């Protein structure tokens, strides 16, 4: 075992640079037990809820569906299906607003619940170790499991990569303020999460797992302690409170001291990470055969009278959830999906809860004051002090404002994880992350334009080449034809036959003969006529 692995085994924790301590406000929602919403009303299920290609719709309007029935067939590249959240009738299939910062519409399948909540037939696996890795991966894909931590990458794709692994890391850090969805899930379902971790270990072909929880969740830690006290393969790690400890790269740094290489994956350094919610969903899919049709969502903020955590069926409109929690919006109320650091605001409440929705936050303007006017940067460097990626946010900001895209790439803009720590501390209230996102999008656009220009250039050059080739071929054909003609003539000469030269001579001879005959006739007609004709005709024939 290397020295580093010994350190990791010995419970050593590393630190990551920077980070902030915003008010946690987790007490608002962490105290109440999980409860469910009744299966009723309309559900809107977007066909794409993960990071990858959407599936193909396999239901029709008017069709009756049962809870858990697949609504789409997964596409080829990183595809995942979506499932009916409850039993009912498909009422519409078409574009509608989805949970996305842009507020754009995407293909959504609408279902009117029949209130029965009948499930389709489920196929639990009695003993997962009897199944092969591939069979289990297919199960996870068919269950539609995507990373529930935020990025929504298909879990089966993440597990399909086969490389030597030192650790499977289960992320129960939940460092973002206000959110307690993972906290509640861990408090109430620790055993299922441990079970899910064991299944994940089996699928990943890994022998050791670490479950990481931030120290501000004592109840969750207590729930795991008895389960993991003598566990042979899974260890509990309690990490200090700091934002953004739950970021994949930061948590890896805390637990192992390793750094994921830029533009690389954790698996490049022998690690793979899944969220506690994902571990729970994996357990549910394997042990009970249940596809991913619900998740825990925190509803919180001072403008929600009954904050708490709820099991919410995917596709439930945010409005129904908020009504259940007795919300009291104020004028210009922001409705944030996600947390205060990385969440995005919703344009309206018809947006449905999807696989990556962990929180709906309705802050009062007194608790999260709206941004004030941006002031000039005073180069104080507070942003660089808190940047967990050790970037220089103020330099990036200047480069982004100057649209110096080469400079931005040189300063590693794409290693920015958009955690928002820099903007949080900026005394001039510069919306730094906003500038970075914009610059990233512009750089991506430029790269795309460049790629399509490159394709156009290649096509143009290919056409030029084809034209030249065709011209050369044409000339070659002509040359060959000429050659063939000459050859044929040469053969004809050799054969002594129809030599064209002879033909000419013959023609001349014939003309001479004709003229001679005419001349003879003229002479016969009368010698008294002038002899000019004679002379001329003689000259002609010369």
């Amino acid at each position, binding site marked *: 075992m290397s020295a580093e692995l010994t350190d990791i085994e010995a419970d050593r924790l590393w630190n990551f640079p920077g980070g902030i301590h915003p008010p946690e406000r987790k007490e608002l929602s962490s105290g109440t037990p999980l409860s469910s919403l009744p299966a009723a009303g309309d559900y809107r299920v977007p066909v794409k809820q993960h990071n990858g290609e959407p599936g193909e719709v396999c239901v029709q309007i008017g069709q009756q569906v049962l809870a858990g029935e697949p609504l789409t067939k997964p596409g080829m590249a990183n595809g995942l299906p979506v499932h009916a959240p409850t039993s009912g009738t498909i009422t519409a299939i078409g574009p509608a607003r989805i949970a996305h910062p842009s507020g754009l519409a995407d293909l959504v399948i609408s279902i009117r619940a029949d209130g029965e909540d009948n499930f389709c037939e489920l196929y639990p696996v009695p003993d997962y170790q009897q199944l092969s890795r591939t069979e289990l991966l297919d199960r996870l894909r068919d269950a539609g499991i995507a990373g529930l931590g935020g990025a929504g990458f298909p879990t089966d794709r993440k597990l399909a990569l086969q490389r030597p692994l030192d650790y499977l890391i289960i992320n129960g850090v939940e460092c973002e303020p206000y959110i307690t969805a993972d906290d509640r899930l861990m408090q109430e379902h620790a055993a299922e999460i441990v079970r899910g971790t064991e299944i994940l270990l089996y699928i990943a072909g890994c022998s050791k797992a670490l479950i990481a929880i931030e120290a501000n969740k004592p109840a969750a830690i207590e729930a795991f302690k008895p389960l993991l006290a003598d566990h042979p393969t899974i260890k509990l790690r309690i990490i200090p409170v700091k934002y953004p400890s739950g970021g994949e790269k930061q948590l890896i740094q805390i637990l192992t001291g390793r750094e994921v290489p830029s533009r690389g994956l954790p698996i490049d350094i022998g690690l793979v990470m899944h969220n506690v919610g994902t571990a729970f969903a994996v357990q549910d899919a394997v042990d009970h055969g249940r596809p991913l049709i619900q998740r825990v969502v925190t509803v919180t903020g001072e403008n929600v009278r009954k904050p708490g955590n709820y099991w919410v069926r995917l596709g439930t409109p945010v409005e129904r959830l908020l009504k259940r929690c007795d919300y009291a919006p104020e004028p210009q109320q922001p409705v944030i999906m996600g947390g205060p650091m*990385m969440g995005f605001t919703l344009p309206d409440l018809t947006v449905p809860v999807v696989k990556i929705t962990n929180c709906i936050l309705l802050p009062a303007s007194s608790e*999260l*004051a709206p941004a004030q006017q941006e002031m000039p940067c*005073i180069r104080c460097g507070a942003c660089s002090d808190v940047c967990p*990626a050790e970037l220089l946010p103020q330099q990036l900001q200047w480069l982004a404002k100057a649209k110096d895209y080469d400079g931005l790439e040189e300063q590693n803009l794409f290693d920015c994880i958009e955690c928002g720590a820099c903007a949080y501390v900026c005394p001039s209230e510069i919306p730094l992350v906003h500038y970075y996102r914009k610059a990233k999008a512009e750089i991506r656009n430029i790269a795309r334009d460049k790629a399509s220009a490159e394709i156009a250039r290649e096509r143009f050059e290919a056409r030029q080449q084809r034209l030249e080739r065709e011209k050369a071929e044409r000339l070659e054909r002509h040359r060959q034809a000429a050659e063939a003609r000459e050859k044929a003539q040469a053969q004809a000469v050799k054969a002594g036959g129809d030599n064209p030269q002879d033909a000419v001579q013959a023609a001349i001879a014939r003309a001479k003969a004709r003229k001679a005959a005419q001349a003879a006739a003229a002479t016969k007609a009368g010698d008294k006529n002038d002899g000019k004709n004679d002379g001329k005709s003689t000259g002609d024939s010369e």
Partner: protein
Amino acid sequence: MTFKIAASPHTHQRRTTRQIMRLVYLALIPGVILQSVFFGWGVWFQLILALATAWLAEGLCMRLRGRPMWSAWRDHTAMVTAVLLAISIPALAPWWIIVIGTAFAVIVVKHVYGGVGQNLFNPAMAGYVVLLVSFPVQMTSWPAPTMLTEHSISVVDTINLIVSGYTSAGYNLEQLRTGIDGLTMATPLDSLRTDLGSQMTLAEATDKPIFTDFAGVGWQWINLAYLLGGLVLIKLRVISWHIPAGVLLGLGLPALLGAAFAPDQQIGPVLHLFSGATMLGAFFIATDPVTAATSNRGRLWFGLLIGALVYIIRTWGGYPDGVAFAVLLGNMMVPVIDKYTRPVVYGHRGHP
């Protein structure tokens, strides 16, 4: 109903530039009070003149640049510049000294370069250097600490001196600077510079009333007060420790070596650290974020450079103190320091 659309993060630590500048004022208070105790009412009049000039100059510049005046006044940066310059010049200097210096600092050094955040040089120190080079007599006429002077100067006399150059009794500044022993009083560093330059030993040179304690009457306490204020700023995370530590190390280490090798000819580290503008420079001037290096490693180098330059100027240069020149030279080096101290970004370190 319409909902507010905003970009993340939706929360913000409410410490604005304005609040940071306020904390800087507050941290300066102990030093300023002690300075007025030792050098009289003049300190307060210089402050008033400087603040008024800065306020007007800032407003004028914003007006000319077609920007809202309130936004510049609100951030208090020009006011901090004014305070730093006012406490850097002799307390009884004529009124036009501070007015010219402050106006130059705000108009030329700050706004001509593009306003707050854009200036390459520390405005207060650039203003100071302009004054020192242009008006050397007025800028080096530090009054002696009040307890060592023959004449005590009243408020009225102070105003008269600053406005007209004479007290109501008809004394001019030169006469007032003459000490109890009939010799013109210089600052400790100035006096040492002159005496050491004329082949006196350190022991002989410090055998004067201004050296009764460890680093010169008045100056040592003022420096301690600024050290205290600076430590508070570090504690409040307004400044990081890197620049002050760099300055004090950069100055203290060569002074220690000098004292070890030539104890008779070289000023010792204690005198260096607690006299002149050392503490003010280390904690309040070199730490101006706009003109300092940005990364922590860079800040340390920036501080070390300034400290070493102060030592060089004090020991071999043409001026008794060198904080202003050292800070400006350090400002010039910032782009180079920033280039070579850029931190390694996550994921770009080599992997075993």
